[in-house]
């Protein structure tokens, strides 16, 4: 079942019993819901939110800015989805929260800071939530000598294009090195930030625009190094009624495929102890847990170690769901817990596969002088010598 109509979610949200499994890790060793762990009132547990939503539907409680703030003080990390035991209900929890946020927006209770995301994204000079001048990527196309038509489109994503350019450039170099036939489009935001914050009015137009641009290139595959874009294109675009035939991959999936097929081989060593942070958007939201690990483990010289909370139990970096813009200090507080957990493993490198996680993890690392190197998997690969087996490339 999917939540296709408003009626769908309104008719099942009451099935939350508020039992509280959603607060924990699998073993119950710790609270793993960032919001409950901070605020501690039951209101801020997933159950609390579900009951507030049900109360709103029933008219037992009215919209207010405070109530809306409770709904927005959630990173939508999906720990609740993972740990809720009610199988007919659990997979929709994040959808409920996003749907309720959309209702908050309709009722005029979207928090001010989150409104900025929409304003900037809608601004025709920008089309991105960072408020930067829109890049049509023409210069990059020229610099990397990319064709107009290609088999692949690299969807850079706003975070990589405007905040984490090192990751963008590393991805471009890697794709070139691996002789992937790819191009770029004049992309507009994938809409992840505005979907997460319930500001959905323009989403369909943005999706249509991006799909048209992708189609123009004739590409059959879209690749991105951004966990947020990946989840959004792969899941949300379909939820919003998009129809597309191209395949959607995260760069790590492509790398894994190339390594597995012997099409590339990592030749130089990376002699560091590395731990991996599972981004919520490709971990709990999509289920890619082993693929990134298999790539790290194929890097010669690496000492790969796990944090205590990993895979389905990963502690969120704190940036998602509009929390980074809405609650910047708290976002870094959440992230600090993750960086400290990484330090406990003895790792010197904290690596991930999401530029948004990278930003927030770096912010905590720097603010609290925790001394780790925070770097994306693709950037690590970019530093290494890679041998290409030309004979049978994709």
């Amino acid at each position, binding site marked *: 079942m999917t939540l296709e109509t408003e009626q769908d979610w309104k*008719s099942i949200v*009451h*099935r*939350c*019993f*508020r*039992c*509280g*499994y959603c*607060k*924990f890790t699998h*073993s*119950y*060793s*710790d609270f793993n819901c960032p919001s409950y762990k901070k605020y*501690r*009132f*039951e*209101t801020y547990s997933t159950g*609390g939110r579900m*009951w*507030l939503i*049900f*109360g709103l539907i029933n008219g*037992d*409680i009215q919209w*207010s800015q*405070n*109530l809306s703030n*409770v709904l927005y003080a959630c990173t939508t990390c999906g720990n609740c989805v993972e740990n809720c*035991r*009610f199988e*007919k*209900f659990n997979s929709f929890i994040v959808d409920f929260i996003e749907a309720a946020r959309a209702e908050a927006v309709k009722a005029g209770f979207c928090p001010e800071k989150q409104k900025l995301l929409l304003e900037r994204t809608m601004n025709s000079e920008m089309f991105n939530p960072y408020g930067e001048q829109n890049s049509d990527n023409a210069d990059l196309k020229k610099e990397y000598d990319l064709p107009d038509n290609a088999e692949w489109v690299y969807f850079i994503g706003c975070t990589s294009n405007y905040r984490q350019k090192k990751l963008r450039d590393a991805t471009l170099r890697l794709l070139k090195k691996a002789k992937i036939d790819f191009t770029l489009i004049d992309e507009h935001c994938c809409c992840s930030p505005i979907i997460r914050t319930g500001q959905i009015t323009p989403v369909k137009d943005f999706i249509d625009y991006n799909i048209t641009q992708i189609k123009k290139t004739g590409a059959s595959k879209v690749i991105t190094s951004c966990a947020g874009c990946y989840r959004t294109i792969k899941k949300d675009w379909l939820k919003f009624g998009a129809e597309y035939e191209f395949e959607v991959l995260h760069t790590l999936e492509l790398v894994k495929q190339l390594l597995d097929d012997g099409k590339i081989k990592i030749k130089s060593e990376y002699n560091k102890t590395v731990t991996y942070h599972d981004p919520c958007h490709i971990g709990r939201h999509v289920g890619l847990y082993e693929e990134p690990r298999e790539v790290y483990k194929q890097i010669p010289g690496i000492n790969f170690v796990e944090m205590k909370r990993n895979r389905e139990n990963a502690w969120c970096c704190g940036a998602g769901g509009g929390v980074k813009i809405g609650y910047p200090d708290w976002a870094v507080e959440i992230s600090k817990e993750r960086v400290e957990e990484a330090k406990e493993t003895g790792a010197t490198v904290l690596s991930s596969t999401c530029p948004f996680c990278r930003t927030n993890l770096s912010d905590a690392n720097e603010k609290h002088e925790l001394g780790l190197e925070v770097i994306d998997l693709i950037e690590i690969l970019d530093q290494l010598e890679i041998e290409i087996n030309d004979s049978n490339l994709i």
Partner: protein
Amino acid sequence: MELFVLNKNEIIKKLCDIIGKEFVSNKSEDLFIYSQDPGVSDPRPVDFVVMPKTVEEIQKIVKLANEEKIPIVPMGGGMTLSGLVIPVKGGIVLDMKRMDEIIEINESSRYALIEAGVTTGKLQAYLEEHHPNLEVSIPDAPPSVTVAGNALIHGSGFLSQKHGDHGSMINGLEVVLPNGEVCKLGSCALSKYWFTRGPIPDFIGLFISSFGTLGIATKLSIKLYPKPKMRYLVFGLCKDPKVLPNLIYNITRTDLAEDILIGIQDKPAWMKGYVVIMVYITGDSEEELDSKTKLLKKIYRKGKARYMKAPDRYYDIFLEKPQFAAKAADFRKGGGFEYVGAFIPLEKIPEIIQIGNDISLKHGIIPTMGARFISKTHSAMFFISYSFNRADPKDIENARHALHETNKEVLNIGGIPWKSELEGQKLILQKMDPNYKMLLKTIRSALDPNGIMNPGNWEVN
């Protein structure tokens, strides 16, 4: 009693002075959530929610409550389902879950000294990681409930058949009394070891099943037990509930069982018309488990029951600790259930099964019942569960009627409803020996002359 001498804004300000504004609220969305629980009780208004971190903060809150005549309701997980943490007369809900330190595990005297907000999930996980040879008896309630909240209501769990209900596993208690003084009960009153309740006058019982009316527990020492290497489950099946008292009696004579549960449900279809018996056995080796299984099979046969080999997934489901009992909440696609948990004598099992069946069918609810045996056969906690659809007020009302009728029948046959909601408490008090009631009233008014502690519960007029 005149409530609230000061206005609410002044009270909020004072509460914030005591514990900081982050953990004090009178915002409507917080009050909304704390005014209800997952059972059938109607919401009741709450004025303030506070989450203290220290004993001193609680003392100050209690002193303020005395000065301003504000009711206080201590809350753990809030999962009794019977509305016990929804204030009857407004006031402060004191959510204890920020007091969540595991202070000490004493390996040799086998106890855990913990703060009152520690959840069963946290203690269980902590022992698994740091003291794998020890275990604590936890209920099949969700892991978000507190060890204290459970022990303080005569809760029971997977070691209760062997070692008694969880109230009896309390070795020591620290409470903030209704006058704001801190009192230590048990050996901790005079020793640094929280290892026993005696041999001094034992007042710990006063605080069990009194629903927070006599004080606020801030720390407790709970008994731990050696953890066996292996645990297994031997299912049995019988058709005639009348054989159960003898059968259970004979199983408990052997000392074979760690835990004994029975289940009676009309759904799934194969269970209809049967009683499923679940005997948990433990041991150090496969051989030991095999020999215990063989003995149990024999007892089943002699007792007019039979052994049942269940599909693998049943073992996974029923060996989980805690079991996911909350699934009953979704039986009517509706996010709710409440049960009468009745403490009854063993011999009343067949009768209560009939009662549960009749009341369920009368209310159009699929019969869902079961029991856990406590301390051999000294008592059984028999539950009759009524699921309801939270989105349907009529369905909730229906379940409420079923619960009330069940409480009455339980009392008629000589049982006692457990962790009873307000209406059930009234029925119990009606039947209670007047001198017991007088004693309760005398103790309560001596300890709490201003009537601030969870007023409305156990109200003796």
